[in-house]
């Protein structure tokens, strides 16, 4: 009691700052203790959850395998399969179990095609999982919508196209991306028509994923990319350039040649690359005219093109560049020069004593 009174007196008599300090100390103690308890709780909780997820995963994996083996050719759904569907229907009602079940289905759905994949899709219909994904599309939170679209994409639910398309101008990049992936994954080139209306930038990351989806497609019947090459959205132009290259769009050569004078430097550089890939000699002649006034990166891209499209008549033009300041241009020019005029190339060794230059010449001679 004495100590208590003493402390009380001490606090009361102390300076304000000391009182504040002690008050804060008590505050921190009051916060720290629950934090420790919470930490202990959260760790235990996470551990049990992980164990339970593993158990359910195993359970659903075996359900799935059994379901796939219970099918027969006569019926759409065999009796044995129906039993499994009914059992899973109960699980689906709990969000926690639903999530695990979906992850198990996806794990296989992504890697398999043909009848087995159709069979998994049937399971997705009949367990009612589809309904939950459809609810998600109308959710308020962007990440719920995005996840819903992704799920519908994974299970190839083509029938909800209209509802998914509603999100074409969603303010969140992630939702738009899922929408685009849905369209391309399920409708392939047909799905690309969203590009006509696209005003937001299509990032490199998005483009790679879209091209990946198209690559998985057997059919190579692409539509003309001309209108996209003319798009006012530069990112659509970049994407169209990639399409033109991958799908050998010789029909688009005229449009591509126009892009050599596009206002965006990177567009110009990329179109040089595509034209080179498509072996368009005309492009080389156009570029030769004003290459001296173009940017360094354009020049480098042009010389890469020359390596591919050189002709005997280019020799005179090239000689000017074998002593170019830029390493890449110099190497390109020398490389072509070697192929055009071996004799003269070899004589270069004696004309110039610059060790840096000789190093390149010697390397090219041996390789």
């Amino acid at each position: 009691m004495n100590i208590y009174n003493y402390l009380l007196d001490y606090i009361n008599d102390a300076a304000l700052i000391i009182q504040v300090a002690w008050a804060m100390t008590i505050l921190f103690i009051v916060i720290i203790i629950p934090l420790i308890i919470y930490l202990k709780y959260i760790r235990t909780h996470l551990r049990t959850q992980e164990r339970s997820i593993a158990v359910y995963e195993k359970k659903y994996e075996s359900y799935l395998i059994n379901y796939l083996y219970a099918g027969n050719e006569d019926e759409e759904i065999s009796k044995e399969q129906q039993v499994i569907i009914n059992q899973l229907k109960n699980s689906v009602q709990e969000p926690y179990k639903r999530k695990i079940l979906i992850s198990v289905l996806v794990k296989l759905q992504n890697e398999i095609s043909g009848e087995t994949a159709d069979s998994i899709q049937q399971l997705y219909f009949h367990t009612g999982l589809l309904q939950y994904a459809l609810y998600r599309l109308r959710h308020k939170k962007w990440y719920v919508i995005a996840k819903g679209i992704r799920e519908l994409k994974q299970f190839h639910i083509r029938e909800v196209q209209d509802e998914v398309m509603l999100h074409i101008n969603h303010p969140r990049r992630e939702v738009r991306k899922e929408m685009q992936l849905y369209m391309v994954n399920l409708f392939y080139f047909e799905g690309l028509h969203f590009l006509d209306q696209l005003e937001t930038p299509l990032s490199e990351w998005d483009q790679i994923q879209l091209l990946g989806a198209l690559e998985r497609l057997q059919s190579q019947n692409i539509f003309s990319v001309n209108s996209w090459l003319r798009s006012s959205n530069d990112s659509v132009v970049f994407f169209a350039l990639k399409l033109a290259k991958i799908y050998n769009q010789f029909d688009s050569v005229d449009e591509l040649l126009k892009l050599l004078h596009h206002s965006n430097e990177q567009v110009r550089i990329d179109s040089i690359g595509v034209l080179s890939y498509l072996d368009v000699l005309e492009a080389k002649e156009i570029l030769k005219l004003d290459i001296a006034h173009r940017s360094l990166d354009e020049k480098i891209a042009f010389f890469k093109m020359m390596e591919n499209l050189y002709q005997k008549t280019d020799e005179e033009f090239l000689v000017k560049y074998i002593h170019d300041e830029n390493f890449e241009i110099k190497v390109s020019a020398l490389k072509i020069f070697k192929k055009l005029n071996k004799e003269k190339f070899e004589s270069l060794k004696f004309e110039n004593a610059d060790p840096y230059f000789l190093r390149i010449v010697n390397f090219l001679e041996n390789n």
Partner: protein
Amino acid sequence: MNTFKNKFRNRKLSSIKENMKENQQYYELDAPKRAQNNSINNNQTDKSATKKVVLAEDNSLLLLLLKFRLQKEGYEILTATNGKEALELIQEHKPELVLTDIMMPFVSGLEIISHVRNKLKLETPIIIFSAAGQEEIVIKAFDLGATDFMSKPISPNELIIRVKKLLH
């Protein structure tokens, strides 16, 4: 949209309820048992000729599915979830066929091919699984001596046809 919903409802109605069984029944994996039964039936004529196949794939579920599917056809399946395990199995069991994913932890599918052809000097046929867009890797795999390739997503039925073709 509407037709789809109707279709969906019809399927729901046609559910067969009399077959409801105890929840636990399907918990145990009985597919392998059935697969084995099948294999015995299939191979009644030549029991000695059970062919060994090493299957390497890091997606455990796909591994399981393909394993059962192949067992059903009467092959003896040795499974590995990474490249290193696969190499050990190949060395130990000398299988008639190797099926391997390209992208695997630690030892890739390419290294498996290279090891089998160059170090073990075996002519065992090897089918590789690749993801879409990995043409370059597939070409490399053929350079190293791969026999055939299948692009993911894989159709199990197509796989069986290719395996049969190689083993007969």
